[in-house]
């Protein structure tokens, strides 16, 4: 067994166990040690994953893909998780179960890692389930607070339904094609006569099942509630990390299907349009900043799906997907870092005058929003740019046009937050903030938003070399 190939994941499991044990035996005021341990584990896992760069093979009997897509996506997942860890200690300082949180977080990240690397339908199911079960816990962490419990409950109900749909889809696919591994499915799908309405239904159900993790229509409804009700650091995690894994899993799945055999791409294209449009329309008049960010993450999933649609038609599609996910992760995490830093304040009216009272937080939030819109030269611009290039190149120019219209609409609701922050609230009081950890995260988010845009070349060059297995 090539255990070395999953060493990063093993490190993560061991770290999670160590965190859990530490949490059981340290006093409450020292529970932050869990955060340090988690960061150390994530760093080691990251270094090990970085060592895999350049690999291009299936391992563990074809269930686990080590390719550019999986490696970069897993690096992103690890980095994003580390960012969320930094946001946490002060937020949960008074929570009795503070230490355990990091263990659950690491397990949830592990689920996302599995999603990104799964080259087997059952492996995929396992990743979705691991990521979901831990996700429910994270969302409902504040069990004495109604909104948090509601978020967890909604997440769970939507998730239970979506997971069942996923399983039915997997059963149909396996039944029709006679295998679980992607390496076997690809030739079976390409075989003449393989296409049938039932098979299309099966693939479509798997896509829908994965759209739950992505936060895309039709299984998106949990996203705004989680963004609003989950602990802010957990909301940052849940709106970003599973999405990275799910997007790669979807791209891998869609790339298996020969374009002329099954009409799965039109289905994804329709989901993409519905997701971005619905997310934006729902965010339009939103007065709750955290819900607004949640809806905006829904619409961003729609953009990510564009790359999935053209994944076999344009050589740039995969690199566009990776670049877009990076940009989205940076923008969304920076925005949530600000929200966390401001102790989770969420009413739009409470942000009035922030540019004067908390200039750093305000500047980073503005940068994050503008980056999510795609204003150059921020990182989000490059994400959208390569995404549009790939989409037009792949023959889906109309989809790019819809995305453009949506981008214009999205500017409106971001500016509904930015406007009052800068133009109003001359008598606003200086809001309380969480502390130095989150301040550092806010600063890092702002710097990354600019720096990854100005220095986009290394990332784009690396992603350009990435390929999808099988």
């Amino acid at each position: 067994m090539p255990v070395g190939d999953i060493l990063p994941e093993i490190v993560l499991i061991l770290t999670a166990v160590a965190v859990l044990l530490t949490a059981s035996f340290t006093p409450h005021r020292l529970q932050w040690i869990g955060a340090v341990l988690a960061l150390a584990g994530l760093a080691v896992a990251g270094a090990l994953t970085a060592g895999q760069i350049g690999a291009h093979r299936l391992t563990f009997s074809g269930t686990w893909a080590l390719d550019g897509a999986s490696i970069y996506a897993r690096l992103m997942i690890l980095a994003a998780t580390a960012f969320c860890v930094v946001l946490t200690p002060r937020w949960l300082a008074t929570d009795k179960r503070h230490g355990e949180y990091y263990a659950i977080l690491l397990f949830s990240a592990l689920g996302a890692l599995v999603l990104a690397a799964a080259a087997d339908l059952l492996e995929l199911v396992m990743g979705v389930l691991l990521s979901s079960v831990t996700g429910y816990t994270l969302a409902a962490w504040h069990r004495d607070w109604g909104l948090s419990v509601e978020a967890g409950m909604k997440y769970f109900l939507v998730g239970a339904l979506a997971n069942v749909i996923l399983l039915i889809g997997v059963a149909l696919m396996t039944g029709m094609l006679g295998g679980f591994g992607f390496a076997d499915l690809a030739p079976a799908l390409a075989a003449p006569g393989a296409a049938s309405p039932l098979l299309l239904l099966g693939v479509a159900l798997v896509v829908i099942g994965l759209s739950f993790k992505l936060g895309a229509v039709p299984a998106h409804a949990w996203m705004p509630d989680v963004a609003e009700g989950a602990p802010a650091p957990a909301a940052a995690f849940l709106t970003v990390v599973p999405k990275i894994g799910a997007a790669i899993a979807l791209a891998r799945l869609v790339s298996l299907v020969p374009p002329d055999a099954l009409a799965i791409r039109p289905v994804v294209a329709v989901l993409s349009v519905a997701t971005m449009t619905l997310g934006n329309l729902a965010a339009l008049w939103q007065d709750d900043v955290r819900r607004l960010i949640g809806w905006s993450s829904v619409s961003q999933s729609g953009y990510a799906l564009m790359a999935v649609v053209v994944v076999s038609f344009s050589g740039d599609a995969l690199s566009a997907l990776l670049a877009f996910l990076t940009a989205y992760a940076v923008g969304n995490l920076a925005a949530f870092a600000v929200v966390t830093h401001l102790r989770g304040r969420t009413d739009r009216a409470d942000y009035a005058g922030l540019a004067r009272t908390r200039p750093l937080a305000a500047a980073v939030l503005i940068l994050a929003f503008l980056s999510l819109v795609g204003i150059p030269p921020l990182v989000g611009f490059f994400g959208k740019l390569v995404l549009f290039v790939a989409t037009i190149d792949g023959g889906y120019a109309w989809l790019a046009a819809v995305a453009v219209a949506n981008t214009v609409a999205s500017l409106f609701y971001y500016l509904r937050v930015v406007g009052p922050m800068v133009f109003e609230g001359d008598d606003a009081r200086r809001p309380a903030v969480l502390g130095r950890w989150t301040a550092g995260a806010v600063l890092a988010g702002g710097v990354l938003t600019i720096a990854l845009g100005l220095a986009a070349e290394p990332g784009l060059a690396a992603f350009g070399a990435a390929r999808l297995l099988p």
Partner: protein
Amino acid sequence: MLTLAILSPLLGALILAFATGLHERGARMLAVAVSAVPLVLLVAVWIGFDAGPGAPQFQAVAEVPWVPSLDVAWRVGVDGMSLALALMSALLFLGSIAWPAETRGRPRAYYAWFLFLEGVSLGLFLVLDLLLFYVFFDLSLVGMYFLIGRWGHGEAERAALKFFIYTLAGSLAFLLAILGLVLASPQGLTFDMRVLIDMQPLTGTGLYASLVLLGFLVGFAIKTPLFPFHTWLPSAHVDAPGPASAILAGVLLKMGTYGMVRIPFSMMTETFAAYALPLGIVAVISILWGAIVAFGQGNLKRRIAYTSVNHMGYTVLGIAAAGALVSGEAAARELALTGAVVEMIAHGLITGALFLIAGAFWQRGETYDLDAYGGLAATAPRLTGATVLAAFASLGLPGLAGFVAEFQIFAGTFAIYPWLAGIGLIGILITAALFLTMLQQLFFGPLPPRWSKLPDLGRTEGAVLAVLLVLVVVIGVYPAWLLTVIDSASAVIVGAG
């Protein structure tokens, strides 16, 4: 040199943003000093500029790779057209920054945003990379959004929002068109304008080429603005602070027309020529619509704002005439294009001055209502003189810059589209009427008692307006120095087709 001209204001903005110790006076001095730097640098480039025959099209070129995997690089360089526009912009920025402003307790932020806007505006005119062009195109929106929203009056926040969303829609249409254009290039992805101009990636009037052209034209028509995409302009202008209005009209609107010449005109000449006539018709509609609606406005700033629609209509008419590939009329087309570029310069100086004057009225009277004023000629002679001169220049009086521009545009257009030029001339008549009635209402007739103590132009205001208006007169009386440089560019651009 050009790089320095772009970066120095941006650097100045950064310093202002972080120099917490600086107060009103210090911030202002710093901003004026920094904004003079690009002007000096550009004058130096102008002096070294070779406008003779056989000179390279783009000069003072520099190139540094930025994102090689997309072939995006920091490419700067100027031809006669962009140099003249950049120089005018630098001058107008210096004037607007020096203009005494109400900074509402936030001087550093105010001047920082102005310098930021100066950097990106100059960048737009000076770069030779399509993607960088887009970057600066978008950033100019961000800068203007904050200037209008924070320092505007009336419903400033709303106006700023409308401005940003409306023009972002335009710039994204433009982005799609850019991508459509570069993806059509046979040699792989490149954003180098010079390569794209030589290559002409799209020709003919197929659906794809037509859609790309449409994307460009809609994007630029919103920015210019042309009828029917002009509706964001009046609200943005009315609620913006005076100096920001001057920049909006004088510099930002030029980005649309400059882009039109630089990109669709030069990079897809054949397709552009096929659609030149519809563009010319839209331009004439803008001329008339702008003039007629301006005539109906009782608000000083709204009236000037609509004359911008009218004047940019002249520019686009000139561009359309120059773009039509009518055989044997190369001289007329060149004349029309030169006229269009001179119109951009003249409009920048004249309308910039007019909006600064409108700002002066607001600072004194807190209203733009024309009916509220009257008989000011005696109390404020310098204000009267400047306004009269600027208004006459704007309506195209011979001997002033506007006339030089409009004469060339119409002379060129008559050879290409005689009847369009004929209809367009009506616009000049209406403009004359609307400026004369404006002057009459402001300065003649009975003086309302509340304005009997209206202060005349201050020293700084007078100096800024004097510089702008002296240039207007100089271009009007002796335009040769400007025309040689601009002609060197338009000859190449028209000849390239």
